[in-house]
C-alpha cells in the first residue's frame, strides 16, 4: 500500500503530463541502493516531464534519486531517504549530431556504447570510457565524473561537456554552456554539475565535444619485475613529447583477470606497463618506436605489440572493471590519486590492504600518466574484514603525505557493501578543509533546499 503522499504525487504527475506509464511501482526492487528500495520508479520521456516529476516530488516531500545505468550503485553513501527512482532510460535519443562541428547532442540516458556507435562510423569520438559502457549512460558518466584511461588524451569526462540541460528540484530548468569549445561566459556551471552525483539537479541532455579518431591506434605492453620499475618507466614515458591515447600500469591480479575474462587478453607481468598511441601512420610509427626504445632501456621484458583491432579490445578491457570474482557482492574497490611518483606507494598500500583485511585477492590498475590508482579486492576467505582493508589502504596512501599546499591525498571507497559505506568517509572527504565542505553544503542548499535530490548520498552526506 502506498502512503498518501506517494499517491498524491503519482496522480499530480499524471495530471501534469497525461502519461499513464510514467510512474510505476513495478520493478522498483531493481533500483535498490544500500538496502533501500524506492516505492516508485519514474521514467519520463522529456526534459519537461523530468521537471514536473521533480516539482511534484518536492511538493510531496519525497526524495528522488536520478538513475542512469545503475553502475554506481555500490558507491557513495546509501541515500538517507529514497522514495522515487528517476530513470533516464527514456531520455536516450539523439538530439543533434553536428558532424562538421564535431558536436553531438544526446539525451542523458543514452548509453556510452550507443553514443560511440553513432559517432565512430563518422570517425569521431567523445572519448568517454567508463566501466560497463553498454550500461553506463552518458549522463551518469558525467554526473559521477567517471573518467577512464583516455583522460590523458582527452582530459576528464567533464572536459568534454559543452552544454548541459538540467532540471532542478523545484521544477525549474536551466541550460548551461553552449555549442562552442571555448566559453567563459559567466560561471562554469557545467563543471559544478559534473561530478555532483545527482545532488544538485537532474541532467536531461548533454552536448559533447567530439574528437576525430586517429587514423590508426596501436598499443605496446611490457613486463617489469616491480611496481617501482613499471611506474618509473611510465613516468619517463609521460615526460617524453609523445601523445598517448592511454598509459596504464596493471598488477599480476589484473593481468590474470584480463586473461581469464571475456576479453582473454594476455599481458606480460608481473607488473605490466601498457601504452597506446594514435596518429597518422608516419607519426604513429615514430611514437611507438620511441616508446619501445624507452621500454628496452628501462628493462621492460616480453614486449607485446597490439595492432589496431587488438589495441581497441585491450583499451576496452582496461577501461572496464575486472569482473569475475571482483564483481562479488562482498568485493571492494578503492581509488586514489596523487603525483605520479606517489603511485608506487599507492600500489604498496593496496597490497597491505589485501593482507590487513585478512585475505583478499587483489587486482590493481593505474592511469599511470594521470596519477590515478584503482584496486579491487575480492574476499579469499570467510573471515575478511573490509573495514581493516579500507583503513589500511587509506593510511598507506596517506603515509608521509603533506596535507599542506594542496598535497592532501584523497582516497575513495568506490564500491563496497553498504555496511562498510555506512561507517566510513566514502569519498575521502575527511582530507578536505572544513570550510570547503561548508561551501559545498551552501551550494547544495541553493539548488535543493528541501533535500529532494539524492539526500545523503554524496560527500559529507550532503
Amino acid at each position: 500500500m502506498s502512503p498518501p503522499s506517494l499517491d498524491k504525487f503519482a496522480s499530480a504527475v499524471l495530471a501534469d503530463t497525461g502519461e499513464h506509464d510514467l510512474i510505476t511501482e513495478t520493478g522498483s526492487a531493481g533500483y535498490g541502493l544500500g538496502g533501500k528500495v524506492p516505492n516508485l520508479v519514474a521514467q519520463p520521456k522529456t526534459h519537461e516531464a523530468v521537471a514536473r516529476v521533480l516539482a511534484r516530488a518536492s511538493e510531496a516531500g519525497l526524495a528522488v534519486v536520478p538513475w542512469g545505468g545503475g553502475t554506481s550503485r555500490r558507491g557513495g553513501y546509501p541515500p538517507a531517504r529514497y522514495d522515487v527512482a528517476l530513470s533516464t532510460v527514456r531520455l536516450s535519443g539523439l538530439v543533434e549530431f553536428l558532424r562538421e562541428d564535431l558536436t553531438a547532442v544526446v539525451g542523458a540516458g543514452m548509453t556510452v556504447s550507443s553514443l560511440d556507435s553513432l559517432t565512430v562510423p563518422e570517425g569521431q569520438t567523445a572519448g568517454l570510457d567508463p566501466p560497463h559502457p553498454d550500461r553506463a549512460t552518458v549522463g551518469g558518466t558525467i554526473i559521477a565524473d567517471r573518467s577512464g584511461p583516455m583522460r590523458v588524451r582527452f582530459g576528464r569526462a567533464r572536459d568534454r561537456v559543452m552544454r548541459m540541460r538540467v532540471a532542478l528540484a523545484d521544477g525549474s530548468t536551466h541550460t548551461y554552456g553552449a555549442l562552442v569549445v571555448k566559453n567563459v561566459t559567466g560561471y562554469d556551471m557545467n563543471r559544478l554539475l559534473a561530478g555532483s552525483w545527482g545532488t544538485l539537479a537532474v541532467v536531461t541532455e548533454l552536448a559533447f565535444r567530439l574528437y576525430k579518431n586517429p587514423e590508426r591506434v596501436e598499443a605496446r605492453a611490457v613486463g617489469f619485475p616491480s611496481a617501482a620499475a613499471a611506474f618509473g618507466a611510465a613516468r619517463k614515458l609521460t615526460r617524453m613529447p609523445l601523445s598517448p591515447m592511454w598509459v596504464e600500469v596493471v598488477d599480476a591480479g589484473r593481468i590474470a583477470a584480463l586473461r581469464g575474462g571475456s576479453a582473454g587478453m594476455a599481458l606480460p607481468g608481473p607488473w605490466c606497463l601498457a601504452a597506446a598511441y594514435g596518429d597518422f601512420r608516419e607519426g604513429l610509427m615514430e611514437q611507438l618506436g620511441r616508446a619501445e626504445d624507452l621500454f628496452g632501456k628501462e628493462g621492460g621484458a616480453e614486449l607485446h605489440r597490439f595492432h589496431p583491432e587488438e589495441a581497441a579490445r585491450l583499451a576496452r578491457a582496461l577501461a572496464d572493471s575486472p569482473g569475475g570474482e571482483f564483481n562479488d557482492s562482498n568485493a571492494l574497490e578503492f581509488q586514489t590519486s596523487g603525483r605520479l611518483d606517489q603511485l608506487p606507494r599507492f600500489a604498496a598500500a593496496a597490497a597491505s590492504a589485501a593482507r590487513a583485511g585478512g585475505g583478499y585477492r587483489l587486482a590493481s590498475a593505474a592511469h599511470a600518466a594521470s596519477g590515478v590508482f584503482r584496486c579491487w579486492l575480492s574476499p579469499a576467505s570467510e573471515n575478511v574484514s573490509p573495514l581493516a582493508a579500507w583503513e589500511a589502504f587509506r593510511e598507506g596512501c596517506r603515509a608521509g603525505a603533506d596535507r599542506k599546499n594542496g598535497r592532501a591525498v584523497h582516497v575513495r571507497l568506490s564500491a563496497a557493501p553498504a555496511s562498510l559505506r555506512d561507517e566510513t568517509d566514502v569519498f575521502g572527504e575527511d582530507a578536505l578543509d572544513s570550510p570547503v565542505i561548508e561551501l559545498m553544503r551552501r551550494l547544495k542548499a541553493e539548488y535543493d533546499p528541501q533535500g529532494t535530490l539524492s539526500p545523503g548520498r554524496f560527500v559529507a552526506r550532503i
Partner: protein
Amino acid sequence: MGHSELIEKLISAVGEDYVHSAHEAMRTYDHDALMIYKGEPGAVVLPSSTEDVSRVMRICHEADVPVIARGAGTCLSGGATPAPGGVLLVTTRMNRIIEVDYENLLARVQPGVINIHLSDETRPNGFHYAPDPSSQMACTIGGNAAENSGGAHCLKYGMTTNHIMAMTVVLSSGEVVQLGADGEEVPGFDLRGFFVGSEGTFALTTEITVRLVPNPEGVRTMLTTFSDMGDACRTVSDIIAAGAVPAAMELMDRYTVEAIEKVMKAGYPQDAAAVLLIELDGLVPSMRSLEAIVREISEKNGCTSFRLAENEKERDALWMGRKKAFGAFGAIAPAYYCLDGTVPRSKLAEVLAEFDEIGKRFGFIITNVFHAGDGSLHPNVLFDDRVPGETVRAVACGSEILRACIRAGGVLSGEHGIGIEKMNEMVEQFDEPTLKMMERMRDAIEPTGLLNPGKIFPGENVLFPIVESGAISARATGMSK
C-alpha cells in the same frame, strides 16, 4: 571604520611601503586594459603572501570595503577595474615560482608570476606551461586563473582551467582553503573548476599548482591566403575534421592585413581576403604528413598561396604580422574596441559577414583577427575616440556584434570574460532562472558582496558608468594583444 583607520590597519597588515592611497597613485590603477570604465580605488595594497592576503581580507571584511584583485591589469573586460573606494589588491610582489617538480610535471606558483616567466624557467629543461594568452609577456597566472584565459595554442592544449590542478584561496571571511590537489580525483563538487574563471568574485587566489607539458620537438608554421573568407573558414573546419589538430590556427581579414602591411612589411599579400596562419607541432617525423594534409585541404579550398616557414627566422616573420596586428590598427584608426564573442566553427563565415553589415550600419570598420580553430573571434571596432559620442557608439556596435554571436549559437566571451564589459548582454545569453542561479552561487560562496562587486551580472547599481571619451580596449597604437 574611517578611511584613515582602514589605511592604518592595512599598513599594520602588510607594511607601510606596500599600502598606497594618495590620489595621484590611485589614478594609475583606476582601470585595466578596458579603458572605457574607471573606478578609483581607496587604497592599493601589495601583499607578499597568503597570510598577508588573509589579513587584508579580514580587515576589509570588518570595514565593509570591497576588495578587487589585480595582476598585471591586462584584462580586456574590466575584471580588474576597482569598485570606487575599494581596496585594490595588486599581486605584483607575489611573483615567486615556489616549486617546479619536473618528476611529476607540476609547478607551484604565486598568482603574480607572469605567464611567460614560468615557461622561460622551465623550457630549457624541456617543459612549458601551455596556456598562452596574447598578453603572456605581461599577464599573470593569477589573472589567467580568474578569467580562465585562452590563447592561440588553446586549440590543441586547452584553456587555463585544463592546466590548473590546485589553488590556495582566501575566502571573503579571510579563511584560507585548498581547492583541488596534486591528484586529479578530489571529493565533492569540483570547486577548483568552478572557481577558475569566476573573475575574482568568489575568492582571492594566493597559490596555484599548474601542470607542465613537454615542449614539442618540432614546430612548422605556414601561411595560406584566400580570396574569399568563406574558403578560409572552410579550410579551418576541414583541417580539424581531418584530425590534424594544429597547435594554432589564426585567421586575419583583409582590413587587418592592410593595417599590418601599412606599418610593417610582414609580406602578407595585400589583395588577400583572408590570411590563415597555421602552426603544427609534434614529433619531427610526424610533421610531414600533417603538413601534406594542411596543404591539400588549403588547395582544395582554393587557397591563392601557401608558404611554409623554412627556418626560425621565417617562422618569426610569419608570426610577427599576427602579433603586431592590434598595434597596426593605429595605421587605420585612432582607437579600437576588441571583443571576443565565440561561435561554432561552421558559423564563422556567416557571422563575419554579419559583423561587416553591422559595421556598415554604424559607419565603423570592423577588423577580424582571431583564433579560428576554436571559433574564438576577435572583432575590432575601429573608431575615433576624439570625436564626442563615438566611444558610446562603438560600445553599442560591440553590443550588436555580441548579439550576432549569440544568434549564431555562440557566446559572449570565449576568453576575455564578462567583467563590466558584457554584463548587460548576459540577459541575452541566459534566461532569468539560469542567470539568477549563477548569482545565487556567488552569494552562497561569497555572502559579503565585497569581492569584485559590480561585475558579471547586470544590476541596478551601476558602479562603472561609461567614460564618454577615451579609448576602449586601448589606444590603437598603444598596445598589442
